[in-house]
């Protein structure tokens, strides 16, 4: 019938046209065809074909080099610098480890938006250019990173002592020759000595060489270096891995006490989430209602630091009042927390040392430990903090406290914590503090408080006598308002806490109740006040006896 013949003809023509259009557009008119078509080498145009970097053990199949032709090995493009630009010299060869390992994005794609990963349903968009070094964290775990003031000081020491004169580091230096001698005087490039290691006796070797050398440059350019400066230089060199911005970011992380609540790698607190993979968060699962700008992980992280509750419903993290520069550094560090599992052959030594041997990612001096772990709750000056909606954190540099608290009491407190309260058992937990670290941080805390040592106490731990019932009554009317009913803790610390009572001495308790803590809400109950009478020493001892009786419960 004619109707069907017409239907057949029209449909067939339509199908043929569509198929032909598809064949042409899919095989000749993709973006990469025209991009490669514009590229020429000195010997003429390049081969038009798909190009990729494949590394099965890293699960990498990166077709970025289909458009970024110059970055694949062997191609020397002379026209079109966008296509032809070779990769900047970097430590790890892109042709071996691929592109997405460092830059993120969708390696298998051959269209621009898909490849850059800024599409729905791709969980790892490319890192912004300014945060490129965050991806070092994919494989590496910088160890022994100090806090920011210490790092700054260390860097400035290196500059001040003009090590750059003979040593190259991150592309600077090693070019000036005292005396104008340009032959063979350079010291080794120090850019990666944090990873590759360096001679621990370098100072002695330098001194010896400068004394014995005939070269005038050696004689004049090297002088004695003070002990403090040498320690600073050691800190500086131990962190050199060719990613200064990342180290600075990690130092910032170690300066605001994030590890007090958050675990990264094998160490940290548990009040907050484990951050080891926060650089891999899927942007499609995040809440962007209060985030300005594009819906990228970077923008979300920045907004999160400004105001955590605006990005995570029900977040207990307080707004920390960070400056823009601090947020910028912390964002870079957060993006670097993308510690994926790697095949053994690609595991760097620092990752092995951190994950398998539990080496510290932050430096082990008292100041860094304090700023990295304690300062978020106890404040940078140790005076304690009070965040809305959370239990207040006490002052630990208060002079009365430090006088009464023995080193042993501090040691036990930090090691065992306060079970049931925010203070964690920092010695007991996984990869917790060792004895030397505990001693170092205790020394720093005393220093921070004004170098206050504990008063010697000849009495035994338990010496107070009195009537527990009287103590209970007194406690109920004087103390329980802040310390909670039966001393369970409210705004004030938990006095019935098992760990507290087993490590504290009666001298401490009597002294604290009597003298109070200047500058805090804790009054000296031994002294009169307008709103209550002073407590007699016997009454204070009764309260202490009552507190001791709480431990059994």
């Amino acid at each position, binding site marked *: *019938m004619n*109707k*069907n*013949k017409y*239907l*057949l003809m029209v*449909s*067939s023509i*339509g*199908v043929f046209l*569509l*198929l032909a*259009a*598809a*064949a042409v557009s*899919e*095989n000749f008119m993709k973006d990469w065809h025209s991009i490669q078509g514009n590229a020429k080498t000195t010997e003429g145009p390049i081969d038009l074909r*798909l190009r990729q970097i494949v590394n099965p053990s890293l699960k990498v*199949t990166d*077709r970025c080099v289909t458009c970024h032709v110059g970055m694949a090995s062997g191609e020397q493009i002379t026209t079109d610098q966008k296509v032809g630009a070779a990769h900047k010299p970097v430590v790890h060869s892109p042709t071996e480890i691929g592109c997405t390992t460092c830059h993120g994005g*969708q390696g*298998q*794609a*051959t*269209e621009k938006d*898909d490849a850059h990963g800024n599409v729905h*349903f*791709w*969980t790892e968009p490319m890192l912004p250019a300014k945060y490129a070094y965050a991806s070092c964290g994919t494989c590496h775990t910088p160890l022994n990173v100090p806090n920011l003031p210490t790092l700054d000081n260390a860097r400035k020491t290196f500059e001040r002592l003009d090590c750059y004169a003979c040593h190259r580091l991150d592309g600077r230096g090693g070019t000036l020759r005292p005396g104008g001698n340009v032959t063979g005087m350079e010291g080794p490039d120090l850019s990666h000595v944090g990873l590759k290691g360096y001679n621990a006796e370098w100072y002695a070797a330098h001194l010896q060489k400068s004394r014995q050398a005939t070269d005038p440059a050696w004689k004049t350019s090297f002088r004695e270096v003070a002990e403090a400066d040498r320690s600073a230089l050691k800190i500086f060199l131990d962190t050199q891995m060719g990613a200064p911005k990342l180290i600075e970011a990690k130092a910032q992380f170690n300066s605001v006490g994030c590890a007090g609540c958050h675990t990264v790698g094998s160490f940290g607190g548990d009040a907050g989430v484990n951050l080891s993979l926060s650089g891999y968060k*899927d942007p*499609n*699962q995040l*809440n962007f209602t209060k985030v300005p700008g594009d819906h990228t992980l970077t923008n979300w992280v920045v907004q999160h630091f400004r105001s955590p509750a605006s990005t995570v419903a029900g977040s207990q993290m307080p707004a920390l009042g960070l400056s823009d520069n601090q947020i910028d550094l912390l964002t870079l560090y957060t993006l670097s927390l993308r510690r994926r599992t790697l095949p053994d052959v690609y595991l760097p030594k620092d990752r092995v040392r951190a994950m398998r041997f539990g080496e510290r990612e932050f430096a082990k001096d008292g100041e860094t430990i304090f700023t990295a772990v304690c300062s978020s709750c106890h404040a940078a000056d140790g005076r304690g903090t009070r965040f809305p909606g959370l239990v207040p954190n006490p002052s630990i540099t208060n002079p009365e406290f430090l006088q009464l608290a023995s080193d042993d009491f501090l040691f036990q407190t930090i090691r065992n914590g306060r079970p049931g309260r925010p203070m964690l058992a920092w010695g007991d937990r996984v990869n917790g503090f060792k004895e030397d670290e505990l001693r170092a941080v205790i020394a720093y805390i005393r220093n921070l408080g004004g170098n206050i040592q504990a008063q010697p106490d000849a009495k035994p731990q338990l010496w107070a006598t009195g009537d527990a019932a009287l103590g209970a009554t007194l406690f109920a009317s004087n103390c329980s308002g802040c310390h909670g009913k039966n001393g369970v803790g409210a705004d004030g610390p938990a006095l019935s806490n098992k760990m507290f009572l087993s490590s504290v001495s009666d001298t401490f308790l009597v002294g604290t109740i009597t003298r109070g803590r200047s500058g805090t809400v804790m009054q000296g109950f031994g002294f009169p006040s307008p709103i209550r009478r002073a407590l007699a020493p016997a009454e204070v001892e009764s309260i202490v006896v009552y507190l001791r009786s709480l431990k059994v419960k």
Partner: protein
Amino acid sequence: MKAEGYSALHEFWINLRGIPNHVYRAMFRGGPPKTDRTRSSFIFGNVFLHLHSVRTHLWSLRWSTTMGLGIMTTAAFLITLVTGILLMFYYKPYPDVAYQSIKDIHFIVPTGRFMRNIHRWAANVMVVAVILHMARAFYTASYRKPREFNWFIGWGLLVTTLGLSFTGYLLPWDQLAYWAITIGANIAQSPREITDALGITAWADIGGLQREILLGSDKVGEEALIRFYLLHVMILPLALVMLMAVHFWRIRKDGGLAKPGNADEMVAEEAKEFYPVFTDAPTKTYHLAAVVKGKTPAVGSGPEHTVPSMPHLFYAELGVLMLTTLICVALAFVSDAPLKELANPLVPENPAKAPWYFLGLQEIVSFSAFMGGIGIPMLCVIGLGLIPFLDREKEGTGEWFGGPGGWKLVKWSVVVGFAGSIGVEAFAIHFGWLREAFPDIPQLFITFINPGTVLTAIYAAYSIWAVRKYNSTRAGALALFTCFLCGFIVLTVIGTYFRGPNWDFFWSPSDWGGH
């Protein structure tokens, strides 16, 4: 004995030159189909084509008779078959690797993206067409005797088509696939609702067994994927092809498509356009004596209003086939097949939705797992299968909306179907259900009294009313089938567009919040 004057070498040369002609004539022994006899032998001499009958009634060739839906379904199947085989060259059926292979097909394989799009669209066209074709066959009462078995085969084809679509859904191994199949497997587990309520799950765990057979494991993983792959590319296509062969064969054996009694008069005008029915009168006499029993239209009436299937039926079939191809290719041109993130068992989709043709079912499952997953679907499936055996009347065969009740009853059934389903849904969404008022009510209560069963009861009551009013089982079938279609549409639409996270009701996806 060779003739005088020819050498064997000369004969060889003549044979060589004659190859094209001889090969052609060896393959096509009947000769070009220019006479009715050759047109006939063209068909019955070919293993593929002889599924067709040699002559076709003009009524069957009208667009309004069938709308070409059956051929459209077949065309969609052939398109999925061809594009599917092409995809099989690159697809790898192992978790994670599967996803990568789909990405490669999309980005690297020349026209891979296009082929995958065609495959996805053709699969959707196939499901839509098979449902519409079933509706057509029902409304034209084409299941009546002697075609009951063919209806049965068609019903089997419907189930196989849905199975093919469902098994294919898992293969990309993305979030959409993984969680949709998780939902499907958990629906398979829904007999547990009953066995748990009765406390017998420990020794009669039918639900768990069904789920484990489906997945080959206790969770959706590599076992499920290879199982679904095998079903999708081999077992179900083979089953489908065999059922299709029987389905087409049966059309011929049942005397062509069902026609109304007055079909001959209806096509009398068109018939006049044709050349004489027979181009050449038989020159031989045939001694053929066969007494054939039965009342099928093919017996007892002459072939006056039939035309040779070659070329008329074939033009119709090819026309529909090309039109379907055009639709699929055009859709594939403008709309990409979806691919979400790599399947992640730790991050459930919320809401996790089954493929669209199961969303109506998922909607009822949200009220009661057993009734929605097993009870009501079984009822529908069995009911559909048994239609030809419950309605054995004769009136109206081959006519659209034929039989007692007719178009008027169907119109009212549409109203009842929509009103019933929308009403029950609106009530359940706005007021909640029994648990809102009686929090401690036993689950078994809800299993038997929930929006799904209430809706089924409403439809059943209405169709019983129709049976009594029109004194006809056909009327009841018309009422019930129409209600079923309308309910299916309403539930599928609600499940697709108005259900958001936690299966809560939302007027628009922008209200979902969170993302």
